[in-house]
């Protein structure tokens, strides 16, 4: 069967402004959108640029805007869309476009670095001593957050970063902070929580739930942010 893809194009060398190209691809219902994009590259126009990695939703390379929604191209199949009309492929919003579907993710990764505290690091050696003990319940506290694959979709869907406060630290970095704050093995978490309270930090989040809606790993991102907020209130600003 034939499906039409309308693809966002921008070449920084040649173009002042972006445009769209249309490609008709011979495909099947069960094919991944990523497969279709690769067919465009190998059979029609090899200059269409997009990132890809593992091809099954664990490396986080191929987050794109598909029909307006941030999604992983390797996790979505043709049948997930109304394939009788055009499927529109665009880069993630919020980030600046470098070429075609490729955006500059530096602002995304920089945000993760921002929440790093200056703890003394342990030596990298094999250890004689045994592992820390952690109960199944304690692990469950933060287990949802370890599913994050750093694809950047949540930041590209967040109404705060998009419309209100571009400097907002964003859901992914807050999720990463949550992963450490709620890990029973980590003791000095106050410093991290203080960092979260800085300008453009956790209090800028207004619980729009868009991050939760688009997360390709179905992480309840907003819920984790709310939990962190509660913990900050209880630990740093206790009502006496």
């Amino acid at each position, binding site marked *: 069967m034939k499906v039409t893809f309308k693809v966002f194009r921008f070449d920084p060398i040649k173009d002042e402004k972006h445009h769209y190209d249309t490609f008709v691809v011979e495909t099947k219902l069960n094919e991944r959108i990523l497969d279709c994009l690769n067919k465009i590259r190998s059979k029609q126009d090899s200059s269409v640029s997009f990132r*890809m990695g593992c091809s*099954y939703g664990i490396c986080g390379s191929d987050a794109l805007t598909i029909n307006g929604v941030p999604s992983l191209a390797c996790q979505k199949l043709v049948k997930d869309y109304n394939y009788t009309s055009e499927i529109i492929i665009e880069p993630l919003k919020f980030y600046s476009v470098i070429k075609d579907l490729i955006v500059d993710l530096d602002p995304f990764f920089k945000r993760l670095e921002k929440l790093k505290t200056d703890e003394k690091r342990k030596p990298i050696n094999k250890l004689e001593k*045994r592992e820390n003990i952690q109960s199944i319940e304690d692990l469950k506290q933060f287990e949802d957050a370890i599913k994050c*694959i750093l694809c950047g979709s949540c930041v590209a869907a967040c109404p705060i970063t998009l419309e209100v406060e571009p400097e907002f630290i964003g859901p992914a970095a807050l999720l990463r902070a949550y992963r450490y704050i709620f890990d029973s093995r980590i003791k000095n978490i106050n410093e991290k929580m203080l960092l979260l309270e800085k300008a453009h930090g956790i209090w800028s989040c207004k619980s729009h739930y868009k991050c939760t809606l688009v997360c390709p790993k179905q992480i309840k991102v907003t819920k984790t942010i709310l939990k962190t907020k509660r913990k900050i209130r209880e630990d740093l600003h206790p009502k006496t």
Partner: protein
Amino acid sequence: MIYTYDVVVIGGGIAGLITALKASEKCSVSVVSKIHVTRSHSVAAQGGIAASLGNEEEDRWEWHMFDTVKGGDYLSDQNAAEILAKEAPGCVSMLEHLGVPFSRNSNGKIQQRRFGGHTQNFGKVPVKRACYAADRTGRTIMDTLYDECLMRKIPLHNEVFINNLLFSENQCCGVVGYDIRDCTPIVFHAKTVVLATGGAGRIFKTTSNGYSSTGDGFGLTLNSGLVLQDMEFIQFHPTGIFGLGILVSEAARAEGGILRNNKNERFMMKYAPSLKELAPRDIIARAILTEINEGRGINGEKYVFLDLRSIGKETLLEKIPEVISFIQTYLGISANEAPVPVAPTCHYFMGGIPTNTKGQVLVDKNHTIARGLYAVGECACVSVHGANRLGCNSLIDLVVFGLRTGKSASRYSIKHNRVSLPVETEKISENKIAFLLEKKGNSSVYNIRENLQNLMTEKCNVFRDGQNLSLALDKICELKKKYSDLVLNDNGTHFNYELQEAFELGNMLKTAESILYSAFKRKESRGAHFRTDFPEREDTKWLKHTLVASNLQGLKVTYFPVKISRFQPLKRKY
């Protein structure tokens, strides 16, 4: 652009990051990766990491060592296998203390599960040795190490493609490549270079490996006139999703998954009566293809069923949630209700760049060292995995030998002065890029690549024979000719992936050729290398490692003995 560091690590998978972290304690180090490091294919590792912690039942490092050697069909170097097994528990402990969120048992210790070929008491019964974080083991280790690199401020050069090793004064002194963003040439001037470039599954049509596993480290090594070891030994994982090749982790069988043919028979009873579905991968891959070839595939098709229904929904969601979720996405099946169609998929390279146990690259059968050059991880061959790797033994190999490599590379860098770069190094990359962009040939990257993948899949799969391997070698020569007659349709400079794929294809062809030749020359069957024309293992002639070189005169193999200490070769039965 020229960057100067003491140690430069090519590859940001688990092997590369561990090496860099260790080296950073003593000297300046950076990591270079063609995809952002957190996208490295190590994130795909699902099932676990092997160590004889004994958290669930009695275990000993000697048993782990024995299983590794027997699993490798006695081609493993036993000094290396001993290091692996002995140091594994301490390394898993280190990972846990760095923050890896391992799954836990009711005592709060790291939970362990069974895995193929891992046994108690020298092969008696399966043992729980695989430590894991659900089926996200690789992802969680990578995330922990990535955060650790950020904390230690290790510079990461992401989306830089390396296409040349640099040597001067008889030693490796850096690498050159280009920024994928805009084709700017980049040179890394270093005292030591560590290759941690991963595998090459993409030379096959069906593989569990990601798009970046194109054997660049193998190509870089061969192009520098150096040798590769044991390239004929390629692991085909028994359970790739049929058609897609995406991996259904062995953990699915460890938790109770059963393989069935079209008669609903549990056929592994025939092939490995004692370990059954938990026999090593080479044995199960052959069993599945034998069933298919003898007409017992499902509906006459080239797959069998992996039946997970008896495990129970709750356990499935707890132990292998990712697997269950992508089976649902790609096949529209609930693994709890319907069996999953599977077939072998190209998975892992036991061979690679020969090293000693410090990660130093060896250049010949006398173990002469390539000064300043190290290799670690899947692209290296120490050799612990011999002719067939056991599940969960790769991740532990990355960590154990990553630590050792990081340590020795930093020591070397402290002790030695920097040698100067050869002249005009930036030009090397610039010229290579210009050459490809301006070339006006007739062959396309995609056409050659597809031909290569079909060729390897047809002629160099689980079952091989001399005639087909020889045909394939002829065919590779044709493909190489076509490669020299390449034309790119994209001649842009920003994120020109066709250009990158052209470089990768060069490495893939080199890698494939070295595999075919090594496989053609080894006239016996051992581990993952099965020759239908020589179906037996023959220790008197072939208990030795292959070294393959490729130069203008063509391909050449030499051999050197296996290091055997504790375990004399026995017939391999499970």
